């Protein structure tokens, strides 16, 4: 099969071949030929209101499905606006392909109108990037981009396409194979190492699984469940790993780290074997590295060899895909079970007893008040409505931490947040991507009043597409997390953190043609949330919460994770 068509059309053929059903973008001068070809094509293009949000939406789409999310922007400002979204996907290992237009080849380097060195600017923001030089190489590059984005440790890949390449005629022949000589992915895991790991797991008295985004990326939830059950090991899931083991699973402790639970942090600190699965020992989890899991030997499974022993030396490094490695590991664990289980049982019983004590001693704070809505109350109500089944996209800050603590997730790919980069303005566009990916799902966008005001323009995208997203603004009138740090570490000198003049939610939503309301009475909260969920279309609920609530537990930056501040000092609370 070969026929003559222009580069724009060839690009669409390649996208269709990759199974792209919808993508997010914003047209401009140099992408005109592409958008002209798109006019006749069946792939759905979602017109967002800002390019950054196209990339966040593509990320939300990818996070909710595991499929590659696609976004598109024009040259110059369009491309530079993608940068934050690309770095977000890079930090969280999310498969995204970004297509950018570039000025005509002959003009590159001449400071042409809307020219920017996209290839140079995005080099360190992507897993890999391309600049297309001829229409003949376009199909090869597009398929390579998708392959790179989705395989190994996933990540964003950008393809920069000059306008003349979109216009040039070429014979389109579907590409049969790609050859990336230097791109090596080890998926299976070393059999000998896996055997040693299984032995070490049975011998351990106080083992713990520390599971992260790698479990989600590898779709390894079933294997993880098998593993913790068979090997009788408790598990913590990081912010990126929530849902990797269902929140209701008896072996699930909770989230560790800076705002993790007492039990999770104590268990990590007290374990004698750390089974790290698809994690990168991020500083927000480990706190002071030297004091992290100080008595533990470490088994580290990761598909990216550069992560192993990066922050913490691994005793048993295993390079591989979490799913494949766990499948093998589960077989060996089962093989050793008859001879090992009885031996390990007494140690494990004591360990579980200890963990249950920690859990009972300090569960997450869930204060209630008759006069004002506590943020934790809000999250508990959302949790009740979700029942562990809704998609919850959040922004970044206090509300994100409270949601991570208090909302349950029965499955992977329900919890969508900007973990590594911590990009404010992520929540609303990511929810848009997730809702397009999963039209059947109830999608909450839980955002703060800060991040929401970074993404208000996307209410237009939501309204225009009739997306039934339930937007919950946890409105404390402050940039809450920054305010919390100013209170705790800067003598409560609240510098540029108060956000006044929040718009009237009913009028704001109404201006876009959908419903909205504000709730500030705790007795009306449940009803307001229920009414929102009953609404068939989009809904904006502005929830006025206690302004000065802090997220606890908290490990001060640079502290050891077992040195948590568990709650506000009594004097400060009054």
């Amino acid at each position, binding site marked *: 099969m070969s026929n003559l068509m222009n580069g724009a059309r060839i690009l669409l053929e390649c996208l269709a071949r*990759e199974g792209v059903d919808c993508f997010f973008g914003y047209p401009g001068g140099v992408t005109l030929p592409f958008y002209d070809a798109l006019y006749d094509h069946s792939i759905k293009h979602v017109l967002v209101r800002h390019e950054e949000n196209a990339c966040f939406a593509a990320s939300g789409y990818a996070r909710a499905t595991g499929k590659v999310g696609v976004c598109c922007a024009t040259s110059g400002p369009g491309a530079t606006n993608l940068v934050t979204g690309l770095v977000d996907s890079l930090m969280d290992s999310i498969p995204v392909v970004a297509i950018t237009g570039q000025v005509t080849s002959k003009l590159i380097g001449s400071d042409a109108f809307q020219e920017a060195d996209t290839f140079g600017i995005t*080099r360190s923001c992507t897993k890999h990037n391309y600049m297309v030089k001829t229409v003949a190489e376009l199909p090869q590059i597009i398929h390579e981009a998708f392959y790179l984005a989705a395989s190994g440790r996933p990540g964003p890949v950008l393809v920069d396409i000059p306008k003349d390449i979109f216009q040039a005629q070429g014979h389109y022949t579907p590409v*049969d*194979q*790609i*050859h990336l000589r230097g791109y090596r992915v080890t998926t299976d895991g070393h059999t000998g190492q896996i055997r040693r790991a299984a032995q070490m797991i049975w011998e351990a008295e106080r083992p713990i699984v520390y599971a992260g985004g790698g479990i989600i990326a590898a779709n390894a939830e079933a294997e993880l469940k098998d593993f913790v059950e068979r090997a009788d090991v408790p598990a913590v899931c990081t912010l990126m790993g929530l849902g990797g083991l269902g929140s209701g699973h008896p072996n699930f402790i909770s989230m560790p780290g800076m705002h993790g639970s007492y039990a999770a942090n104590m268990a990590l600190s007290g374990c004698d074997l750390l089974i790290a699965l698809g994690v990168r020992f991020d500083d927000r989890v480990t706190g002071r590295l030297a004091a992290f899991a100080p008595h533990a030997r470490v088994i580290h499974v990761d598909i990216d*060899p550069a992560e192993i022993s*990066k922050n913490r030396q691994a005793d048993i490094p295993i390079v591989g895909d979490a799913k494949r490695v766990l499948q093998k590991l589960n077989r060996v664990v089962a093989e050793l079970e008859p001879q090992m289980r009885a031996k390990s049982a007494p140690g494990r019983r004591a360990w579980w007893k200890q963990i249950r004590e920690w859990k009972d001693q300090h569960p997450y704070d869930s204060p209630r008040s008759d006069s004002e809505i506590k943020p934790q109350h809000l999250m508990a109500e959302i949790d009740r409505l979700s029942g562990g089944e809704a998609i919850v996209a959040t922004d970044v800050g206090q509300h994100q931490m409270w949601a991570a603590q208090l909302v349950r997730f029965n499955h992977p790919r329900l919890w969508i947040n900007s973990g590594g980069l911590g990009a404010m303005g992520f929540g609303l566009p990511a929810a848009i991507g997730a809702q397009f990916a999963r039209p059947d799902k109830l999608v909450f966008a839980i955002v703060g009043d800060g991040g929401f005001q970074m993404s208000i323009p996307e209410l237009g995208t939501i309204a225009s597409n009739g997306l039934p997203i339930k937007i919950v603004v946890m409105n404390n009138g402050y940039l809450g997390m920054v305010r919390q740090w100013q209170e705790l570490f800067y003598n409560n000198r609240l510098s540029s953190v108060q956000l006044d003049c929040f718009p009237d939610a009913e009028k704001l939503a109404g201006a876009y043609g959908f419903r909205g309301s504000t709730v500030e009475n705790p007795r009306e909260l449940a009803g307001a949330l229920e009414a929102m969920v009953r609404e068939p279309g989009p809904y904006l609920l502005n929830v006025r919460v206690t302004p000065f609530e802090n997220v606890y537990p908290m490990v001060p930056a640079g502290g050891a994770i077992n040195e948590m501040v568990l709650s506000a000092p009594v004097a400060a609370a009054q």
Partner: protein
Amino acid sequence: MLQVISVLLENKPGALMRVTGLLTARGYNIESLTVARTLDPDLSRMSIVVDVEERLRSQVIKQMNKLVNVLQATDLTDCPAVCREMTLLRVRAPLEKRATIIKEAEIFGARVVDSSVDGFVIEATGDSEKLDEFLDVMQSYGDIDVTRSGAIAVSLELRKLRLQPPIHLAASLAETEEEETNGVLNG
């Protein structure tokens, strides 16, 4: 102490920047860098001299190996390897001194490659310390102008290079999950 990193990479636009970007992003200064294509014209060999502490160096090299354009990045610092550098220097010297200079240059195995009434151009190769000495000596004869190539290095050990075989797209598109490749890592 300076270290030598040898990188085999695809001869493509941007590949050089990806490698050096890993060093500059961490604020390391590159002491020298040479790059030229190999017997396979689609590939280049790069030798980088830097000063990076050992723990971070292994991390940086792992990340270089991760780059899509890089086939193999190797730390030659503590391996048996040969390291050479070339220098071209222009010496401005009066006629009566020239015979002495040429004699001195011969001691270092250097040779004159061109000359004019103003002076001449000498080419020398050797390890970097030897070249330093040579340049010190030459400076004592008059004005010199120096261009150094930076070190190139070759390992004495044979290193296995395992490469990714071609990926068949039809199969990969039909069943992405089953088509994960199973290569082995270099470096």
